């Protein structure tokens, strides 16, 4: 395992299972009266968020604080980035402050990779452009394993805007490593060009795929990243690729519905589906803290491995 967590593809099967097992133990701690461990006492974690986020930033902050790390939050708004400071200059500032871990979200794919070359601490990718979001994939896998008891052989269908989705990329890589069978579903215009080289199946027909799914993961249509017209209308998209009550009814009895959030109710997921008992949306958020604690502990908790 590397010192950094940049891509879900960097994790071996053993690495990924170690993270999930560690998260399992840490999740049990959340029932305790004192939800804090002394493990990262004296270590500094910087949350470097160049892109808006509530869920992920709060989740990482809670995880680091529960491990007793000192947390410094940095958001691009109101920082020197607004004055034109480059990523490298920001990295040097962090270096001077002695950050042991840097959690970075950036709108540019590859920013965490560049940052890892500039700082001594561990870099955790919290989402970079349309590239990857490895801790989201880990918490999704964790949620699936908790609900369904296994990952090996699980049929996972990921639906929607695959092209712009870092969640989909990380999930495909991680779930493949862990032995699940992933099918990507979405309009051809929202499938990446080289998707046939990914370790997964591809379909354009949601209705046909739903009954063959143990897990169905709905993705948000990322309007903010779209620079062209990818589908005729939101209504048409919703009809063909949205999960409504009728489609949910076609799922196998045990199947779960996932969504990484934020949801656009009425577009990719109907409100009644989002609030159904088989929806794990809220659970995913809770699990996110345990999984991120596991990642921070395993990256920062021990002796620093020489680069």
């Amino acid at each position, binding site marked *: 395992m590397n010192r950094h967590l940049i891509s879900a593809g960097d994790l071996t099967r*053993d690495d990924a299972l170690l993270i999930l097992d560690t998260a399992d133990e840490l999740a049990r701690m959340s029932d305790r009266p004192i939800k804090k461990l002394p*493990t990262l006492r004296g270590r500094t974690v910087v949350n470097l968020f160049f892109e808006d986020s509530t869920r992920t930033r709060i989740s990482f902050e809670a995880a680091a604080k529960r491990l007793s790390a000192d947390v410094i939050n940095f958001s691009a708004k109101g920082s020197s980035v607004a004055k034109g400071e480059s990523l490298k200059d920001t990295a040097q500032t962090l270096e001077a402050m002695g950050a042991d871990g840097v959690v970075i979200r950036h709108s540019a794919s590859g920013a965490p990779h560049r940052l890892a070359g500039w700082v001594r601490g561990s870099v955790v990718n919290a989402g970079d452009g349309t590239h990857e979001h490895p801790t989201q994939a880990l918490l999704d896998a964790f949620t699936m394993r908790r609900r369904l008891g296994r990952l090996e052989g699980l049929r996972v269908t990921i639906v929607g805007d695959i092209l712009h989705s870092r969640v989909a990329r990380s999930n495909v890589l991680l779930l493949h490593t862990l032995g699940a069978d992933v099918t990507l579903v979405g309009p051809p215009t929202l499938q990446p060009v080289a998707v046939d080289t990914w370790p997964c199946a591809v379909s354009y027909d949601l209705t046909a795929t739903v009954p063959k799914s143990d897990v169905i993961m709905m993705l948000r249509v990322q309007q903010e990243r779209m620079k062209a017209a990818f589908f005729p209308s939101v209504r048409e998209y919703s009809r063909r690729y949205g999960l409504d009550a009728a489609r949910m009814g076609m799922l196998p009895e045990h199947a779960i519905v996932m969504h990484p959030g934020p949801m656009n109710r009425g577009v990719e997921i109907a409100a009644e589906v989002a609030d159904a008992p088989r929806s794990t949306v809220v659970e995913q958020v809770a699990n996110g803290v345990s999984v991120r604690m596991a990642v921070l*502990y395993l990256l920062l908790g021990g002796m620093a491995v020489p680069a």
Partner: protein
Amino acid sequence: MPASSKSGPGTGPSVRASGSAEAGGPGGRIARSADAEGGKAVLDSADIGRALTRIAHEIIERTKGAGDVVLLGIPTRGVPLARRLAERISQVEGHSLPWGSLDITMYRDDLRMRPARALGPTHVPAEGIDRRTVVLVDDVLYSGRTVRAALDALNDIGRPRAVQLATLVDRGHRELPIRADYVGKNLPTSQHEVVRVLLEETDDEDTVLLSQGAAAGDPRNDPDADSRSDPRAGPRDGWRSDVRDDPRAESPGDSPQHIARGQS
């Protein structure tokens, strides 16, 4: 490894201050070779059984019937010991005794000295530990650092009325003001030596082995590693879950016991 087998006094820097280098050992002792993996059996299965039965009776006597006792084993080998003690006490007293496990990894004082390691299970019985007498159970008491970590961990779970300590083997060399309330066997050792407790549940047999030590700086001889380390696993590799979980993961070919028997 001929070079490392002659680590007399002052040969090479000791990686850990409390390691074996400062004491000096008999010249030409075996270090880090395959035969050092085994050792002399100081307790056999029957001895372990008798020691546990005695400890069980001592717990009952000291706690006046063990009515408010919770047994918490420290992973890995403290957990099966806690279960066995709970069974024995239940048999004598006729009421079931809550028992569980308490992982102390996150509370260790040497986390930064080695790569991050996998966590063991923590299962606190539903009764909780508030206002109860907690008996911590571990296999080997050495530096006392594991027990210190366990006391910190308990602190975050609740407030016991009292905390006591039971250990199968006390090998001395304490580095903290900690003592055991119940001891299976006091085993005077030198810091060069390695004490290994093997249990049916984790190692397929019950025995306690005493072997000549490993080279200075070898984690197997590190008092910090105390009872928690699995000596057969060798140095821990943080990101490999198999090292901790499967004590037989290492050295698949050479069965340490069988070599040890031949040697001793």
